[in-house]
């Protein structure tokens, strides 16, 4: 079968990207950039526009003038048009719609009394997914773009793999322990409740099997993996996947709103989203919707997501054994084969990148959350091109303000740390920094004094350039992947939500979301 279609669109999209990059570089887009306040994004507009545009142009020329032969090259060539199509949508959303929506939110605030763009989290991640959903349901994904749209999941997988670089041993140890306990409890709990409810409502074992995998582990992906193992009927599959998609999309919008309303920190929200959202694709969406300008929440959420993904082969295997015991039609399964076939290989990539990151290849080895400690004069005092000097050491006026509030501190170690900061005009070591941050977290000092201390912490912790680059690439991978996944969520499939799966799904979905919220609010308070 030949996959590559003769279409001028890949070439056209490539030309549009390159032309846009050129216009930004030449300053033609300056008025638009100024109006949208996107000058910070001009660099990525040029780099991404040229890089992706040139690739699309080359692929477009090959598509137009060559006769493809059956094989891998033909398949991958056929995906370039779709990938360019997703990118164009993502560019429009991130560089135009996102800043415009933010401006509209601010403009409407006096009339509405709240910033609708901020309250509803209408940022580029949410709008990217919504744009994808609109494209597939209103306009349809063009024929020539279908293979590329299906490839978008690689964006998410690559994002998760690269995310491994940003964790330190300390973070991973803290998060992994927490996630195994929480996910273990909620995965097994929801699988158990689903099977119990299914038995009470007399649903067939095949339906109970496919539904419990979807509701318990990681949504659509788990149902896809489990359906053939438990011999699910076509209507059972349709009901289950419709129900999970409906819940997933709903949760992606609701979770960030609730999280903000409850004043959750990044760790709490990441843990909640990673545990409580039924469908794993929407976990990243919700995390990025909650914190669009950073990836701390995403890092926490993805550890929880990876933990439950690791439960997938185990649960599928268990369901296979469970089904064989109950049904004569069930085929005996090869345990090793199921474990091997269902194991998410990309998690190994994540672990590999984490191990590479901890060797200090990308950032100094003692980095924490991608940041490393450096209080040398070279790092604290900088001179720009025009000769302007920026000194981040503690100013005399700020030192006086801190001195005036020193008596408020009760703990001797904190008193000593503050005195040392005032004397040395900078944080002297990571341990000293821990004590200074402890003063901020204790909320004993005034807001002004706390802000001065926060600035001193930021002055000695620096983000490695390579880590900053990884953050940008990861954010783009997720934006691209989620926009593409949005293009695979059809209303026709969501409409199939119904029957017993909708009833059981609603009960289990609500229990999981509310239960994990309570557990997270009670037991997860520290910022990891």
């Amino acid at each position, binding site marked *: 079968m030949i996959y590559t279609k003769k279409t001028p669109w890949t070439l056209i999209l490539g030309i549009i990207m390159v032309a846009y990059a050129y216009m930004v570089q030449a300053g033609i887009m300056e008025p638009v950039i100024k109006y949208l306040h996107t000058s910070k994004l001009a660099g990525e507009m040029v780099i991404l526009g040229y890089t992706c545009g040139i690739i699309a142009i080359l692929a477009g020329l090959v598509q137009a003038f060559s006769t493809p032969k059956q094989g891998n090259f033909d398949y991958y060539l056929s995906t370039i048009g779709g990938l360019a199509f997703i990118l164009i949508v993502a560019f429009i959303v991130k560089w135009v719609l996102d800043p415009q929506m933010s401006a509209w939110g601010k403009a409407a605030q006096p009339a509405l009394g709240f910033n609708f763009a901020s309250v509803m989290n209408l940022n580029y991640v949410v709008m990217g997914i919504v744009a994808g959903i609109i494209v597939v349901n209103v306009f349809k994904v063009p024929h020539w773009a279908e293979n590329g749209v299906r490839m978008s999941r690689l964006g998410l997988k690559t994002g998760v793999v690269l995310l491994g670089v940003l964790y330190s041993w300390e973070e991973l140890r803290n998060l992994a322990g927490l996630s195994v306990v929480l996910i273990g409890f909620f995965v097994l709990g929801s699988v158990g409740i689903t099977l119990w409810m299914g038995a009470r409502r007399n649903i067939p074992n095949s339906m109970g099997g496919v539904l419990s995998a979807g509701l318990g582990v990681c949504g659509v992906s788990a149902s896809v993996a489990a359906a053939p193992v438990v011999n699910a009927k*076509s209507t059972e599959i349709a009901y289950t996947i419709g129900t999970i998609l409906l819940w997933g999309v709903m949760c992606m919008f609701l979770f960030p709103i609730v999280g903000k309303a409850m004043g959750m920190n990044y760790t709490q929200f990441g843990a909640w989203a990673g545990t409580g959202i039924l469908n794993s694709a929407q976990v990243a969406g919700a995390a990025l919707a909650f914190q669009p300008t950073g990836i701390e929440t995403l890092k926490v959420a993805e550890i929880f997501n990876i933990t439950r*993904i690791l439960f997938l082969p185990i649960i599928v295997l268990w369901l296979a054994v469970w089904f064989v015991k109950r049904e004569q039609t069930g085929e005996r399964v090869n345990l090793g084969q199921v474990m091997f076939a*269902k194991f998410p290989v990309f998690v190994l990539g994540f672990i590999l990148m984490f191990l590479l990151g901890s060797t200090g290849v990308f950032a100094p080895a003692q980095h924490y959350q991608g940041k490393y400690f450096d209080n040398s004069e070279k790092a604290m005092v900088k001179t720009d091109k025009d000769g302007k000097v920026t000194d981040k050491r503690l100013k005399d006026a700020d030192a006086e303000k801190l001195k005036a509030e020193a008596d408020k501190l009760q703990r001797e170690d904190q008193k000593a740390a503050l005195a040392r900061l005032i004397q040395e005009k900078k944080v002297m070591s990571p341990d000293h920094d821990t004590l200074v941050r402890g003063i901020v977290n204790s909320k004993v000092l005034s807001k002004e004094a706390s802000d001065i201390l926060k600035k001193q912490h930021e002055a000695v912790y620096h983000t490695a350039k390579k880590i900053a680059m990884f953050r940008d690439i990861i954010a783009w991978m997720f934006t691209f992947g989620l926009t593409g996944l949005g293009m695979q969520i059809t209303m026709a*499939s969501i409409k*199939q939500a119904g029957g017993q799966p909708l009833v059981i799904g609603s009960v289990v979905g609500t229990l999981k979301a509310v239960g994990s919220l309570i557990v997270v609010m009670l037991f997860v308070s520290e910022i990891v």
Partner: protein
Amino acid sequence: MLKPKHILLASHGTPGARAAERAAFALCGPKATLHHLIVVPDFWKGMMGDDWLNNASTRDTYGRYVEGELENEVRRHIASLQRQAAKHRIRYRPEVVFGKPEQCLRERIARGRVDLVVLGAPRPKGKSGLRSYMVTEKLLRALHVPALIVPYPA
């Protein structure tokens, strides 16, 4: 009174469609031909949803499994009607297509000779079943042959 020679029965496996099948057989005279259009609704195309974490082999297995399930359902459906047609000595011509049920039906009517179209009524509210409708306003406006819409079974 209508004496159709070519009856087009359109169904995609719902209880309403099964009621239409019974009506179509009742309407078929001795020399009538029953054309049976079976539509596999195109929402199945989106039934992998936004799965992103399975590997290609798991997705292939799932795709083949769902295709197989749908194929078996259609095969059983055709075999059952074939038996009834043989019993009533009616010529039976099945045709399986994939797409939007309403659009597939309009295209089938436009393509070949049809004297009467027999359809099942849409599923009443509160009854469970897949949501894929064949009787739509668009279809009714486009029809240029008589149509019989059989009530949903009680």
